């Protein structure tokens, strides 16, 4: 009995005895902290330097070169009929390819995360194929299938639908290279969301369709928005696949990136730089729009 009481008294004394080595350690820690801080600054500088070399410097150069000779040549370059056509064509293709991929991506994510099907792993791999293969290959493959001598193109051209060298083919090529974004951004969000709320909706009498619109989609909307932004950015900038499928006919099948390339090759540097700046601004506007959207809706809820 008395032995155990003595033990109870010595217990709190043990950490007090350990105070000395701890004070030594804290003296050592300030030196360690200084080293850590130096290391942190080093890492930050390296990261910023890398970013500046790769991203900032070229971007600034393009803006500088564009506006080097004032606004008048820029205005002329922007209002050139072929530039205008390329601008609207690019927007048209984005307006068609992005909704297609959004619907497909959400459906695919639901199938892979919630579906009870065989061969999920294979399907998941297939989705990523457009990331893995070169856009040029995508373009060539589309020509093989939908071109004049391709096995679908023949049948289609008989019904009067031309795919290759026209808008449908360019939309297909754009959709294909930007296929994985929405599905890949939505899947982890779906997984984290879990299916509890969906089951709760079912027990409350909601149909599958009502559950999707009222519970699932609001739950995954930020994943979808991010996927849509990435898809839009990719679709706007797509060059390789569209270049092959479009035939690059000036004023007809020339998108903005193709127009930049065309102007550059014809030594119209102002035209090339101006179009490039427009492209960059479009992409930045997309990112900014997402940022504002996320901030406003999230901030309002204090979630």
């Amino acid at each position, binding site marked *: 009995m008395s032995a155990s009481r003595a033990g109870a008294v010595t217990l709190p004394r043990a950490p007090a005895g350990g105070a000395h080595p701890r004070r030594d350690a804290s003296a050592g820690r300030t030196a360690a902290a200084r080293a850590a801080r130096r290391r942190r600054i080093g890492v930050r500088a390296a990261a910023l330097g890398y970013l500046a070399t790769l991203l900032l410097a070229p971007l600034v150069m393009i803006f500088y070169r564009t506006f080097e000779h004032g606004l008048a040549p820029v205005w002329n370059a922007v209002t050139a009929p072929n530039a205008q056509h390329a601008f609207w064509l690019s927007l048209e293709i984005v307006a068609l390819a992005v909704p297609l991929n959004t619907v497909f991506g959400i459906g695919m994510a639901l199938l892979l995360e919630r579906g009870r099907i065989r061969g999920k792993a294979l399907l998941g791999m297939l989705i990523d194929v457009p990331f893995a293969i070169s856009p040029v290959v995508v373009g060539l493959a589309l020509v093989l299938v939908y071109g004049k001598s391709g096995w679908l193109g023949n049948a289609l051209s008989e019904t009067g639908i031309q795919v290759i060298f026209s808008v449908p083919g360019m939309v297909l090529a754009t959709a294909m290279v930007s296929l994985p974004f929405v599905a890949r951004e939505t899947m982890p969000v779906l997984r984290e969301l879990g299916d509890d709320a969906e089951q709760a909706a079912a027990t409350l009498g*909601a149909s599958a369709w009502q559950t999707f619109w009222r519970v699932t989609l609001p739950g995954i909307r930020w994943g979808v928005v991010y996927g849509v932004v990435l898809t839009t950015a990719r679709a706007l900038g797509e060059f390789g696949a569209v270049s092959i499928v479009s035939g690059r006919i000036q004023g007809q099948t020339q998108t903005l990136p193709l127009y930049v390339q065309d102007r550059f090759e014809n030594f119209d540097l102002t035209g090339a730089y101006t179009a490039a700046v427009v492209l960059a601004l479009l992409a930045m506007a997309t990112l900014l729009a997402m940022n504002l959207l996320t901030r406003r809706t999230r901030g309002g809820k204090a979630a």
Partner: protein
Amino acid sequence: MAIEVRAVSKRFGDFTALQDIYLRVDDGALTALLGPSGSGKSTLLRVIAGLEQPDAGSVTIGGQDVTGLPARSRGVGFVFQHYAPFKHMTVASNIAFGMAVRKRPRSEIDARVKELLALVRLQGLAGRYPSQLSGGQLQRMALARALAVQPEVLLLDEPFGALDVQVRTELRDWLRRLHEEIHVTTIFVTHDQEEAMELAEQIVVINEARIEQAGTPRELYESPRNEFVMSFIGPVNRLGDAYLRPHDIEILPEGGDGATEALVQRVVHLGFEVRVELTLPDGRELWAQISRTSAQELELREGQILPVRLPAPRVFAG
């Protein structure tokens, strides 16, 4: 509505969750499915709700066979273990959900939501989001949401499992009073025998995919059918094949008929109850549960040797 489960079996791959289950729950009853985790009790609840399809057997609710019916057509209110709130909706919208998908008129929904908010005592929180609620408040919101569509059956999966002790006791009392008020047939899943004993009119003990025994709390406590039920419901001492309740062990001031001696190893004071750990002369260990008053009268001290009288132990065949 009465619920009847007949010959239900369910497997997940190699794992048997339910094996040939028969269960009857009377109209308006409050029933507990009690068992250790992984025993299949939650699966049984989900089968009744239609969230899980049984491999074999049938489920009847109010005389109607609902085995092939999807969850949304069963008229069942379900409260999930982690409440499954709709995080992007306010408390009021969460509660209104079942009525909204049924396209009820706005005025009717508003009136019912108000009534339910009062019932679950969340009046001031209608405009809050689930992330701004405590566990107990979420639980009550989930309950109001389930009750909003006037279910014939209310199913609760570990309703108090994720709450701290004080909130749990409070909600438990509140749920019992609520049941007395609205008398909807209720089944809840729990692994806590005390919770089951205190709340339920009928307890169904489930272990390893089978029902071990079903009955009133008193029946299960006084005449358990096997050692699992005996040791799961209430404290128990095991001496070889024999089982005895700690409160049936008598500690005597002096020796007498049928008394044996025991060494007091430890005395633990737990408020009204005192737990006495004993060692018998043959080295077997057991513990006795006595009241504080009798512990004082006996002047129990560790190391003491006292006469004790053991009750006739219960022995279960096979």
